Every structure is written in C-alpha cells, then in structure tokens.
C-alpha cells in the first residue's frame, strides 16, 4: 500500500480526497422527488398496463379480468390498424422533412454565424417551440384555411378557388414539421458545434468539394447526433395530439387523439390503455431497431 492511500484512509470520512464525494445521506435527498414521480407517473402507468387486460362493460365501465381481447381487437380491426399506419406514415414523412431541412440550418448556425447572431437566432427558433401547440396550430389554421393567408397570397398571383388544404394529411404534415423543426435544429446544432472545423478545412485544402466534405467528413462524424435528433422528432410526432385534432379535423384519426377519445370520451379504459401501450411499444421497437441498424452501418462506414 502506498503512502497516499494510507493518508486517504486516515482522512475523515466527510472529507474524502477524490471527487465526487460519497455521502451516506445523499440518496435520501432524492426521496421526495422519487416518491412524487412514483405516485404521479409510475403507479398510474402500472395500473394502466393492468387495466389493458381488463374487460370493458358499458354499465360498470370496467370488469376485472385477465384477457388479451383488447390487444386482439386492435390487431383484428382494420380501422385501428389504419390509424396506426397513418400515424407511422405521417411521422416518418414529417421526420424526414425535418432532417432534410434541419441539417443545413443547424450547420449554418454552427459555422457561418457570429456568436451574437446565433444567440438571437436560437431564441427566434425557440419561441415557436415553446409557444405551445394550441397557439402554433391556430396560426397554421389562419394560414391554411380557404380564405386564409396562403389563399390571399395565391390570389394575388391569379389563383382563385378553394385551397382545400385544411383537414388533410398535408395540413397535418405541415403542422408537425413546424413543431419538430426547432427540436431537430437545436439537437443538430450542438452536434455540428462539437465537430472540429479544422477537419473540414483539411479536407477542403486537399481538394475535396464542399459536398464531398459534408458526405465524407461531417455527416459520418455527426451521425450519432443526427440519429438522436431523428429519433426525438419521430417519437414526438408519433404522440402528437393538437396538430392532428385541429389541422386534421374530426375524420382524420391518429393514435394519440384516439387514445384520448377512448379513455376520456368513450370511457373504455381497457381498450384505451391497450392503445396507449401499443403506441409506446411500436414507437420503442421502431426507434431501437432503426438505431441499432444505423449504428451497425455507421461502424462499417467509419472503418
């Protein structure tokens, strides 16, 4: 045993040499918050999982049982499969658009803008993000409706007649992209900032064009972060509520509004609970699967 180890052992226990110190009482500081989250989130979720195996009864609401019929109902009823497929399709499309539009903006903010301008632009991007779905969606209703801003602007160019954009998949996709873009831009921006700009200069001075530098140097290095941003956008759009309800209208069904409808309106808690767990499981399986796939490819790419 070396001298320093002996000294460390002799030091009083509340003043150890190395950081972070180990304090016996520390974990208890998390207890109040932990109890709160357990009662407010984990217990209700566990109850919901249990309820998804119960049976619905119009008179008594819920009958205790242990049946898979709610899950069977989902996978045998074409209506609900269509809802899931529509949710998946719209989410994939919105995420892809965010990726294509978000990369250049995030890169621009990381490389071509002064520190002050960047700070201001980040606030400009964060305001729409933190403005809330109700306000943002109403702004899109103002633009997309048949007598709205877009119709007026097109009217100036001679286009008359109804736009027919409201209550369509297009309107929902536009709304979702505008919700998700700020998330994508902010995630990607910190990824690009972590990449050493000298690498790009080096590749450029060796004769690589900008597109080659992006494709061969920047994007491979940024891939894990790009993946994180993409997964985040996909999860958020799978669970979107306000955008499909307000821009899609009453006949455009996506998963989150359907969960709300079943739990709060139809009071069919067992089926609503099953829907919620199907939504979470499908999202989880897809994001974990795609991440694993991309990471395996990435390893091959970077070798």
């Amino acid at each position, binding site marked *: 045993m070396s001298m320093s180890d002996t000294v460390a052992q002799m030091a009083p226990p509340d003043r150890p040499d190395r950081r972070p110190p180990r304090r016996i009482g520390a*974990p208890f500081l998390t207890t109040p918050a932990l109890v709160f989250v*357990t009662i*407010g989130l984990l217990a209700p979720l566990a109850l919901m999982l249990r309820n998804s195996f119960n049976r619905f009864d119009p008179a008594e609401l819920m009958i205790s049982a242990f049946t898979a019929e709610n899950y069977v109902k989902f996978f045998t009823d074409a209506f609900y499969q269509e809802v899931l497929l529509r949710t998946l399709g719209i989410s994939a499309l919105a995420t892809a658009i965010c990726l294509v539009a978000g990369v250049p903006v995030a890169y621009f903010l990381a490389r071509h803008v002064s520190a002050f301008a960047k700070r201001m632009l980040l606030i400009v991007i964060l305001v729409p993000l933190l403005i809330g779905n109700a306000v*943002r969606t*109403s702004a899109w209703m*103002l633009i997309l409706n048949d007598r709205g801003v877009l119709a*007026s602007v097109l009217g100036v160019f001679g286009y008359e007649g109804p736009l027919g954009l409201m209550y369509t998949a297009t309107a929902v996709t536009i709304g979702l992209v505008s919700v998700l873009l700020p998330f994508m831009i902010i995630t990607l921006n*910190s990824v690009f900032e972590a990449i050493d700009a000298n690498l790009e200069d080096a590749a450029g001075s060796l004769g690589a064009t900008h597109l080659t530098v992006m494709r061969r140097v920047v994007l491979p290095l940024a891939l894990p972060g790009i993946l994180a941003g993409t997964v985040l956008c996909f999860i958020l759009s799978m669970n979107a509520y*306000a955008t499909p309800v307000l821009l899609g209208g009453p006949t455009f069904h996506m998963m989150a509004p359907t969960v709300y409808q079943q739990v709060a309106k139809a009071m069919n808690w067992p089926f609503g609970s099953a829907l919620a767990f199907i939504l979470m499981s499908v999202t989880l399986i897809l994001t974990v699967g795609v991440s694993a796939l991309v990471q395996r490819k990435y390893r091959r790419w970077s070798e």
Partner: protein
Amino acid sequence: MGNAQAKTIRIGYTAISVLVIGFVVLPLIFIVWMSFFSNRILSLPPEGYTLDWYRRAWQMADFRNGFFLSLRTSLIATAIALILGLPASFALARARFPGRETINTILMSPMIVPGIVGGSSLFVFFLEVEFLTGWRIAGSSPGLIAAHSLIALPWMIRLVTTSLIGMNPSVEEAARSLGAGPLTVFFRVTLPVIKPGVIAGSLFAFVNSFIDLEKSLFLVGPDRTTLQIALINYLEWNFDSTIGAVATVQIALITLLLLVTDRYAKLSRAF
C-alpha cells in the same frame, strides 16, 4: 477551396436557413398581425386596425379565467418542482451512490413518457382512487397542480444539475475551512453560484407547465379550464381574431421569459 466558391456555399446556406426559419416563425408573425385587424370576417388585406379583439378576449370569461388559472397552476407547480428538485439535483450532481443512474432516469421519465399516455393514466388513476376513497381529484385544483408539477420537475432537475456539475466545489471547501457552517455555505456560497441554473430551471419549468395541453386535457373541470384548453375548445367551433389576441399575449409572455432565461443560461442546453 476558392473564395468565390466559399461565397456561393455561404449564400446557399443563408438562403436555405432564411426559408426554413421563416417557415417556423412566419405563422406566429401572421397571427400577431391578424390580432389587430378590424375586419369581422378574416381576410387579407385588412380593412383597418383596432385593439377591439383584445377587449373582447378579456371579456370572455373562458380566456380570462383560463389565463389566471394557468398562471396560478404553473407558479405553484414551479414552486413544488423547486422544493422537490433542488435537493434531488444536489444528490445527483454531487454524490455517487448505487442506483444513481436509475434514479436519474425515473426523475426524467415525466419528460419521456408521452403527454397523452401520462395524462390518460393519471386520469384513470385519479378516478379509481375516487371510487375507493371518495376523494375527488380529477377536475380538482390539487389534481391539476400535481400533473403540472410532474411536467415542471424534470426541467428543474436537468437545468439545476447542469449548473451544479459546472460549479467548482473547492469554493465551498474554502468557505468551510474558514469556519462557515453548512447553512451559511449553502446560502452565501452555493446558491449565488448556481442561481443562474435555478432561474433558468424555474423559467423552463414554468413555461412548459403553462403551455401544456395533453396532460391538462384530462384533468380540467367544467369551470376549471387552463388557457390552452380554452384556446382549443374555442378553435373547435370558431375562428376569429379573438384567438389572435390571446395568442399574441401568450407569444409576448413566452418571448419575454425566454429573453430573461437567455441572460442566465445557454438556452440550447435545456434540450
């Protein structure tokens, strides 16, 4: 790379960024502009300008009461998040103990579980508790505040923990070795250093609670609607500049809070 080429690339990036950021921001600019139109039926260009819609929005009980209910709920939720989150952040940032990662994940989970799923499970949970005990929680103030505290807590912990990790503990060590007691060290040394993190955490907690729609949807009562719920209820059947007036007030409030937060912490760090 030639200078001309570098310039082209720069212009290209600028053009794309202007388009994309415009796409995100323009809707908000339009709705603010619209809130001043004097037209009864919305159309462009405006016939004139007026502040009438603001008066009308203020006169509508749903919006006025909704605003004050949201304000009160989010303020209380932020205070609860502060009380629960501050000690937890200290433990997570300063100490190393078994299960630390798990505890961190659990405390962050309200941010990860989708709002509709969290909201519907809380709604059913509250009603089942009511069946068993007779306590009415869903649709009551405590129920709403509990849900909003759950939204606020992870933001608080995330931002306070970040600022605690960035703090040099030897400052506290120095104060202690000069004879300061633990309370003096906390209030005179630690708190001033992490104040920006606490302020940023509180503001983010407040804003995210204020704009919440998905969880509140399940927990509002007939005469107890938050501003966001009042907005979407109104939007289902009407669309006029009253919406614009309410939206403008909210945009102004949130922009102001973000500008204040920006003075204290790097905004992008919150995500």
